[in-house]
């Protein structure tokens, strides 16, 4: 990905704020001062627990919401304005597509699959004849691994995995430059999840589409993403390449998140205790944090003091041992890794 760094980013989100006013005295700060970039053809994974604002970011980027403050630039166009002019809106609706979480709820049950997929083409008049339209739909169905004959069926006649393939086909047919995948595999079975993720990887290789992959399952995010951003309570705490985040997590929340993933290794898992993280008692104030460079493209949001404390591994070890008694959970991160 280093070669791409010199290019202008495809999508640039800077200091995005998205507040929801609940009442006169209470405002939910769903997204608070979040900045990140997505380059052409790469996959950016956004992870965080429910309520961290990851879906809100996705929806703000595709302009389902009006951002409270900040700027979103897509291909050099400012798309933050409240009233988009017609040209910008058409390009935006054309070049940015979304795949939703629940394929049953996001596909119109009264429409045939071919019409659901072709709807974007119809709206943007992207064909000159009916034959061309149908040809396009057939080609895209084939691409996502569905037989073209299945186009004349309705969504309820498909299985969960197939339905999500339809959702992907619907997004892909516009040849978008950026696809926002909002928890697109969480509703699927384990064996089907792998199929869909592989499909998305293949398609990305073939078409060079950039992907904003929103999920709470870190192991899947690691597998598909080039870079990752960790969100908590509306703040982007840490961002960097997948290797940087997984090999050297700096923020305590990222550490807790990583240690919470159970590995399919019973001997280890039986005795391992996941790190705990509690924002209220941790003494960390997200609002005070500023972006600190750890190395490469790896940034962490914290105060100067916290930065020193967290990057000093020796202190981290001590901190953990004092909290947990004799056994240092911290050592887990410094275990020899295979092939290194």
């Amino acid at each position: 990905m280093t070669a791409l760094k010199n290019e202008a980013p495809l999508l640039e989100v800077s200091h995005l704020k998205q507040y929801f006013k609940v009442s006169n005295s209470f405002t939910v700060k769903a997204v608070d001062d979040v900045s990140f970039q997505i380059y052409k053809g790469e996959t950016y994974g956004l992870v965080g627990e429910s309520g961290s604002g990851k879906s809100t970011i996705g929806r703000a980027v595709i302009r389902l919401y009006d951002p409270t403050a900040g700027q979103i630039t897509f291909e050099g166009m400012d798309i933050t304005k409240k009233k988009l002019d017609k040209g910008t809106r058409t390009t935006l609706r054309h070049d940015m597509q979304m795949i939703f979480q629940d394929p049953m709820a996001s596909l119109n049950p009264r429409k045939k699959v071919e019409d659901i997929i072709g709807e974007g083409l119809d709206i943007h008049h992207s064909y000159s004849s009916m034959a061309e339209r149908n040809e396009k739909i057939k080609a895209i169905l084939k691409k996502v691994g569905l037989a073209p004959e299945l186009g004349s069926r309705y969504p309820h006649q498909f299985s969960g995995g197939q339905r999500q393939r339809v959702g992907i086909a619907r997004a892909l047919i516009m040849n978008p430059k950026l696809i926002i995948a909002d928890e697109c595999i969480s509703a699927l079975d384990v064996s089907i999840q792998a199929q869909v993720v592989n499909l998305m990887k293949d398609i990305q290789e073939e078409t060079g589409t950039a992907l904003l992959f929103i999920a709470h399952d870190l192991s899947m995010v690691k597998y598909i993403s080039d870079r990752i951003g960790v969100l908590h309570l509306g703040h982007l705490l840490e961002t960097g390449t997948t290797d940087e985040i997984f090999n050297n997590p700096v923020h305590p929340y990222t550490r807790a998140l990583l240690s919470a993933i159970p590995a399919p290794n019973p001997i280890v898992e039986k005795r391992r205790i996941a790190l705990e993280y509690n924002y209220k008692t941790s003494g960390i104030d997200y609002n005070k944090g500023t972006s600190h460079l750890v190395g490469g493209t790896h940034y962490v949001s914290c105060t100067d003091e916290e930065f020193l404390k967290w990057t000093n591994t020796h202190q981290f070890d001590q901190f953990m041992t004092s909290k947990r008694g004799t056994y240092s959970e911290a050592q887990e991160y410094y275990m020899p890794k295979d092939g290194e």
Partner: protein
Amino acid sequence: MEEKKNNIITVKNLDISFKTTAGMVHAIRGVNIELERGTTAAIVGESGSGKSVTMKAAMGILDKNAIVNSGEINFTYADEEGKEQTVDILKQDKKWIRKNINGRQIAMVFQDPMTSLDPTMTIGKQIMEGMIWHYKTPKEEAYKKAVELLEEVGIEEPEKRMKNYPHQLSGGMRQRVVIAIALACNPKLLICDEPTTALDVTIQAKIIELIRKVQRERGISVIYITHDLGVVAKVADYVYVMYAGKIVEKGLINEIYYEPKHPYTWGLLSAMPDLETYDDRLYSIPGSPPNLLHEKVGDAFSPRNKFALVIDDKKEPPMFKVTETHYAATWLLDPRAPKVDMPKELAERIERMKKGAENYDSLKE
């Protein structure tokens, strides 16, 4: 027979069909499950494999259109005088099960804490409900016990929380309340049906830790129903892998994870991305789970199995014995079958896992 005595629950040859408008769905096809007292079993499988139906049968809460074709579910418990009793749950009527088994002996934790709690009742009342109904506990005593239970499941300021309604609590807290309700009548067996699927990873870790703690302290038996092999690795002693209404592999946890024999188990283990995976492609099982409306001759997994043999489409494989505790239903284990090893990537990963375990041991000491 000595072994039998120690089992808290034994499911024998369970066979269940559902009558639907589209026809009979043969959901459970001869399931055998045993659980020793004080241990933890996990039932793993995809949605529609019949794992929840099996446990619902054990609770006597099957849907009305279910028909039990054969089988028995023997549950051993101590009755009010402390005498040990064994009953076949399938033969008892619903009222009796309601009075003597549900809540008192077997309690269940469901997947979604939002739908399993009553939104119109305070959580305190919901916890006390079972005690008052089953044991006729006086209200003050029940209240005291409910507060203790909330404390036990790790809820701060329990007295304040007693007056809260479910919508005032977060997802993780709600699941803690559900666990408190399940524990209210001192059950001997806890069935957790996907207890953490609706929760975030960090909260999942806490809830699992809680269930383990409760199990340790109370010495109860637990059955987990899940599709997450990571969670299973954390909790289970014994694992049953289910596919299309049948147990296809069963064994001690280490046997299933380090020496899996069934191609479906291979697929499940490979499909899970572990944090050390650097492969380009994730292994996936082709196709999708079968529709049980149309019964298939032979092994139900064969259409998705790249190691399938000719016999798989003709005859259902029996359970082949691998070790005293490890069994798998695949023709690949037949002495006449060609020798097939697990996929290379999986073998490598298991090697890596074993190494990781050794490293972990040495680090700990």
